[in-house]
């Protein structure tokens, strides 16, 4: 075995140990540790934003800035694609 293969094996073993430990330290499924924010949104979303769909109330009202960023990303992507292919057409 060459030196490169040995270093690759050691590297993958370190990553495997890291993954196993992080899987063992994970808290059980469906039991979040901090639930204050979830309870607050579930309790207040219908009264504050008037939407029956809690996810949409988070996306468009509580976290509106995030949606603004997504829209900006999409706008930039479309502008870039149109610019590149307009140059390619001529």
């Amino acid at each position, binding site marked *: 075995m060459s030196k490169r293969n040995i270093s690759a094996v050691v590297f993958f073993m370190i990553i495997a140990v890291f993954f196993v430990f992080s899987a063992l330290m994970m808290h059980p499924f469906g039991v979040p540790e901090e639930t204050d924010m979830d309870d607050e949104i579930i309790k207040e979303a219908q009264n504050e*934003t008037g939407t029956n769909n809690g*996810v949409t*109330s988070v996306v468009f009202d509580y976290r*509106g800035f995030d949606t603004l960023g997504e829209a900006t990303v999409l706008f930039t*992507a479309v502008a870039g*694609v149109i610019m590149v292919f307009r140059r390619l057409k001529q």
Partner: protein
Amino acid sequence: MSGMSKIVRTISSIVFPLIIIYGLYIISHGHLTPGGGFQGGAVVASGCAMILVAYGSIWTINKMKEKNLSLLESIGAICFILLAFFGLGFGAVFFNNFLVGSNFLFGTIPYFGSTIADINTGGVVPLMNFAVGIKVIAGLFAIVLVMAHASSTKEGKK
């Protein structure tokens, strides 16, 4: 990209209105059922991409110019940001939901818990869904249309 056979074109023109109606339903009921502007816009844009594949890019670009699509996308983005600034003007903060609780438009507040779906709720959220929906439809379809047209003209030159 040239068009496909007559069978494919007929079937896709039958299915196309159903896809459009389903996508617009997802957009307009975004505050009641799962979905919203992004998801419904992706559904409508994939219906338009199906028409593009079936009929070919030259036929499609004669019907729908790429310039109009980018104009429509900019209109959607401007409506979205304008609604956010209306929150700053009429309410207190940026992205404030100033329409909820008023008697103007989408102002009803539902009761707590699982209630009957009322389309007249949500405040600013349905309007933002419409704006983002227009933006996503026009943006995704413009990307697909421009790429297909560029590849078809490149093939024609060879």
